[in-house]
């Protein structure tokens, strides 16, 4: 396993350096350190993981020590320390998804791919991980590929999804935009706009999200009405100074 110390020299591109400057400029003067999480995503966009060179790059950009950057990089799950594949497949195995079939999905994918948690297939295509709650419990069990959602999975459907990826296809997620590579996704995570046509407008949800809203509409139920033009009342004058 690679460690943060065992990297080889690597030069980040001028484009990455320019992007780093733009990211840092989003934060208040003197508070540049706030850009550290985006910058760690940015170095992953070039290298697919956070390497010692990536740590050194962030440190140099922000005037921090490598130890300070390393301490942050090792804290967060989305910063990968081992090489990653083109696709990161995350299976929710938190309680609800696990009991609705997520555990079975994970075991099936692990068997299909021949890899375990945080491991990548030999061809460098797919990294598998089990994930904690992905905030989609009404769609349980869920799988994400490069963080795009595939809802209501079963061991069979997830196995088919993996087979499609291996066949060079990119199945359309249930919610969110079409798939891109993990490195391309890291650019979005760094704060760069996803300018692919239709990415923002891509399908928002399955039926679960709208159930309450549509049920109310279907039965003509509405919240109480109001007068939007009524001004905000002036608060009673405060007591004067002592």
């Amino acid at each position: 396993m690679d460690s943060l110390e065992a990297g080889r020299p690597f030069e980040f591109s001028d484009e990455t350096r320019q992007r780093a400057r733009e990211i840092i400029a989003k934060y208040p003067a003197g508070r540049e350190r706030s850009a550290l999480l985006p910058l760690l995503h940015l170095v992953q966009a070039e290298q697919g993981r956070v390497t010692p060179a990536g740590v050194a790059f962030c440190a140099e950009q922000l005037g921090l020590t490598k130890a300070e950057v390393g301490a942050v990089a090792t804290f967060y799950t989305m910063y990968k320390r081992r090489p990653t594949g083109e696709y990161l497949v995350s299976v929710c195995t938190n309680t609800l998804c696990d009991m609705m079939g997520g555990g079975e999905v994970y075991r099936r994918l692990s068997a299909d791919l021949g890899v375990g948690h945080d491991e990548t297939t030999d061809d460098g295509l797919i990294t598998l991980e089990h994930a904690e709650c992905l905030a989609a419990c009404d769609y349980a069990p869920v799988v994400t590929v490069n963080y795009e959602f595939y809802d209501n999975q079963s061991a069979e459907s997830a196995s088919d999804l993996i087979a499609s990826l291996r066949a060079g296809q990119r199945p359309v997620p249930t919610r969110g935009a079409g798939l891109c590579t993990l490195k391309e996704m890291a650019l979005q995570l760094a704060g760069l706009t996803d300018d692919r046509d239709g990415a923002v407008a891509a399908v928002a949800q399955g039926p679960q999200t709208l159930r309450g809203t549509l049920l109310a509409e279907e039965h003509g139920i509405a919240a109480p009405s109001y007068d939007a033009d009524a001004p905000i009342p002036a608060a009673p004058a405060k007591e004067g100074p002592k």
Partner: protein
Amino acid sequence: MTAPSPAALAALTPVLTKRWSTPDAWNIDGYERLEGYLALRKALKANPDDVIALVKDSGLRGRGGAGFPTGMKWAFIPQNDGKPHYLVVNADEGEPGTCKDLPAMMNDPHALIEGVVITCYAIRANRAFIYIRGEAVHAARRVQAAIDQAYAKGYLGRDILGSGFDLEVVLHRGAGAYICGEETALLDSLEGFRGQPRLRPPFPATHGLYACPTVVNNVGTISSVPHIVLGGAAWWKQMGTEKSSGPIIYSLSGRIVNPGQYECGMGTTLRTLLELAGGMVPGHNLKFWTPGGSSTPLLTADHLDLPLDFDSVAAAGSILGTTAVQVFSDQDDVVYATYKWLEFYHHESCGKCTPCREGNYWMVKIYERILSGKGTVEDLDTLLDTCDNVLGRSFCALGDGATSPVTSSLQYFKQDYVDYIEGRTPPRLHADELVGAH
């Protein structure tokens, strides 16, 4: 499926979810067509203090889990102190069971942005950050688009709508750490550090982001603000209960026919919610459920008629939390469920304080032993003793929350543990089946 009764349907109060069914409401034209940014125009005509007073009067309580009165939080921000003020929106949704903020940001992102502008105007902040969970890329895309559109239309930036009020908003993505949903850990993370909670006091209201006065509010809280500004405090209080006013999104998941998001007046019961959601999946009988995520003590079929508002749930020994209602049946194993939750807390414990770091580590081990058929009755005492040393002794609420499923499952379902220990339930775990073990 039989239709829900009129009484159950009457519990529905679509306010925050009202626009969700309009396909282009996420786009600024669609949003403006549906009363979008009217509340901002109205708020900018009022004195900022009057906006704070309005939110106070509405009785709005934070939707992130703690239920702190929002207007009171805003009023804690010192004024004329010469320091910059900040609003930080907590969009780091990740409490197991919780899935209300991502759909809100997907379908109605401008409601969040409009709420941000109004809130910043009220607390006199000229910079806001929206800290969104890293994995939520689909929602982040929509929120970023909404921010860009709002700038283009003059709802953000300099001299907003000619009011003289300036506001810059930055969307900031996390990197995978549940603890960053804790407000002080979130602030440390936003400052570029490991996400570990801070000692309080001082509170964020005086020493928050960059040691300046800061309001940290959940997505649901901020998205409620434009509605309150438009409808008024009295209107908001027509929904919900006296001390838990307004509508709230209940997120239903698990063994039910139609899981999903149901916005109802606060104080709606599980019985009503189940009726709206088509009932339990055939063949499944309700056994245990969380009222508001895994950090809230489990409830049982005896609590079907408990009003799900802050005070009623607290009186029943649990917490309303994030109204993440996870429903489990008699075919689900409560011991295994609790084990999986503890694995989560163990993985997500930031390691700063000993009770949470060590307590969760050892409790996971005890559960593995029990589930492997090697537990002892003493293990149950050890679990409770460990919880005693974690609850109230941890640095933040993550440790407290971890004890919730343990103590409540032992309270209601001790026999299920004993059945593993005495061999009536066959062992469930073997070393090669420890999915999620670290």
